[in-house]
C-alpha cells in the first residue's frame, strides 16, 4: 500500500524570526554548553561584511526579530557595526550572553538603539559556588557586574537559570537572590540537556530522576510563592506543569489533547529559522547537523519555502506516536507531544522520534512521582 501523502502545512512567506550564532568564540567553557563539542559544526566565524549582507536580505524578507547567540556574541569586536546593520534593516534584536564581557560602553549603545528586546544573561545560582561550578571561577561576579551594567543603562534584562546537579539544591536561594535582592521582575529556567559539551560531562551535570523531582518540587513551590515570576518553556518547571495536565487527563479519561498523540513538538520551523556561526542555514540551533543552505549563496526565502529537509520537519507533526515501539502501551500517549526533536536526535539518533528525556512514563518508571510536586492547587 502506498503511504498517504503528507501535506506540508501552510508556511509564512519568510521567517518571522531568525536565531543567529554570531560567533563560535566564547570566553567561557561551560560544562553543559549545547553549542560546543558538536561534531556536526564547523567552528568558524564570518567576517563583518558577510553578516551585513545577510542582514540586508533579512530586511528585504521583512524579518522582525533576530536573536544573537553563539558562542558569546560580546566577543565580536564588530558587534556595534553588526547591530547597526540589524537596526538599519528595521529589525529588533535580542542577545543571549554569559554577561561577563558587558561594559558601560556597549550597554549604553544597546540602550541607544531603541531596538533591543532584551539581553539574556545566564545566572545559575545565588553564589559563586553554584554558578561557577559549571561556568568557571570568577564567572558569577563578572556576570553580575554585566547584569547590573545593563540595568543601570535601562536595557531590558532577562535572566535564565540553567539547572544542573551543582545548583539544584540552591533554587530557593536563587529565586530570593534574583527576585528580592536584584529586584528582577522575573526569570526563566531550563535544565542542562544532553547536547554539545553536556554529552561529554553528562554524568557530572545532568539531573538524576531524584534531582529532577527536587527541581520540580522547588520550582512549583517557588512559582506559587513569587506569583508566577518564574517561567519555563522547557526543563523541570515546564515538565511539572505539562505532566500534571497529562496525569489529570489520563486519570479522568479525557479526550486526546489537540496537540497530543503526534510528534507536534516543536512548532519552531513554522515561524523561525537559524544560522550557524559559519553561515550555514539550519532549522534550529539545536539541530545544527541539518544543513539547509548557506547565507549569501542561497536565497533565504527559497530555503524557507522549499527546503525538503525543512518541510520534512514541518510534517513531523503528522507522525502518530502509535508508530513507535517506545510509546507502546503508554497511557499518556493521547496527551503527549513527543517533545524536543533535537534531544531525540542526540539521545537516540533520530529526529523523528519522541524524546526519551521528557517521557513522563519513563520518569515514573525510574522512581519519579507527581504526587509530591503539587501540594496546593494552582
Amino acid at each position, binding site marked *: 500500500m502506498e503511504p498517504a501523502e503528507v501535506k506540508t502545512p501552510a508556511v509564512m*512567506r519568510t521567517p518571522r524570526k531568525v536565531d543567529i550564532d554570531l560567533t563560535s568564540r566564547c570566553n567561557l567553557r561551560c560544562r553543559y554548553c549545547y553549542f560546543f563539542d558538536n561534531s556536526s559544526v564547523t567552528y568558524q566565524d564570518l567576517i563583518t561584511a558577510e553578516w551585513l549582507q545577510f542582514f540586508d536580505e533579512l530586511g528585504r524578507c521583512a524579518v522582525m526579530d533576530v536573536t544573537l547567540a553563539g558562542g558569546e556574541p560580546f566577543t565580536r569586536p564588530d558587534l556595534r557595526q553588526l547591530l547597526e546593520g540589524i537596526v538599519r534593516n528595521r529589525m529588533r534584536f535580542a542577545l543571549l550572553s554569559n554577561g561577563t564581557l558587558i561594559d558601560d560602553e556597549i550597554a549604553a549603545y544597546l540602550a541607544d538603539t531603541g531596538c533591543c528586546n532584551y539581553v539574556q544573561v545566564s545566572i545559575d545560582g545565588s553564589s559563586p559556588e553554584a554558578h561557577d561550578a559549571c561556568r568557571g571561577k570568577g564567572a558569577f561576579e563578572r556576570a553580575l557586574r554585566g547584569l547590573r551594567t545593563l540595568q543601570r543603562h535601562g536595557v531590558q534584562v532577562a535572566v535564565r537559570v540553567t539547572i544542573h546537579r551543582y545548583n539544584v539544591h540552591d533554587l530557593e536561594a536563587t529565586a530570593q537572590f534574583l527576585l528580592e535582592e536584584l529586584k528582577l521582575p522575573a526569570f526563566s529556567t531550563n535544565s542542562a540537556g544532553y547536547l554539545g559539551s553536556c554529552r561529554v560531562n553528562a554524568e557530572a551535570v545532568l539531573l538524576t530522576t531524584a534531582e529532577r523531582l527536587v527541581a520540580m518540587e522547588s520550582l512549583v513551590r517557588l512559582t506559587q510563592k513569587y506569583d508566577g515570576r518564574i517561567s519555563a518553556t522547557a526543563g523541570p518547571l515546564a515538565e511539572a506543569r505539562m505532566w500534571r495536565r497529562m496525569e489529570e487527563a489520563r486519570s479522568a479519561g479525557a479526550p486526546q489533547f489537540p496537540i497530543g498523540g503526534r510528534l507536534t513538538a516543536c512548532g519552531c520551523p513554522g515561524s523561525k529559522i537559524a544560522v550557524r556561526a559559519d553561515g550555514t542555514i539550519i532549522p534550529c540551533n539545536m539541530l545544527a547537523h541539518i544543513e539547509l543552505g548557506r547565507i549569501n549563496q542561497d536565497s533565504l526565502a527559497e530555503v524557507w519555502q522549499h527546503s525538503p529537509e525543512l518541510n520534512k520537519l514541518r510534517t513531523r507533526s503528522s507522525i502518530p506516536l502509535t508508530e513507535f515501539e517506545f510509546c507502546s502501551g503508554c497511557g499518556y500517549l493521547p496527551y503527549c507531544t513527543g517533545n524536543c526533536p533535537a534531544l531525540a536526535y542526540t539521545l537516540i539518533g533520530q529526529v523523528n522520534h519522541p524524546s526519551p528525556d521528557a517521557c513522563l512514563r519513563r520518569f515514573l518508571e525510574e522512581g519519579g512521582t507527581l504526587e509530591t510536586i503539587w501540594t496546593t492547587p494552582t
Partner: protein
Amino acid sequence: MLKPTEKPIACPDIVLREEFDDWAILFHHPSGDSVATGPVGVAIWKAMDGQRTLSDIATEIENQFEDTPNTALDDTIAFVEELLQRKFVTIEPQTDGL
C-alpha cells in the same frame, strides 16, 4: 476625526510583512508595536502615498474588492485613524490656498 479629503502617508519606518493567505503584519521596529491586518488593510496601506485622499482610497477599495459594504469610506477612515494613533501614519498637510 479625519476628513475624506485628507491624504495619509504610510510611515517609511513601518515594515509591511505579508504572511500567507494575504494576511499581514505592520511592524514598527523602534517600538516593537505591530498591527495585524487582512487583504483590505494591506491594500489601504499600499495606497497611502500622500497623493491619494481617504475618499480616493475608499473608492479604490470598492473597485478592487467584491462585495465591499457601503461603509467603505467610514471603515477606511477608522482603520487609518487607528494607524494614526499608533504613529504608523502621518497626514499630508492640507494645501487648499487658505
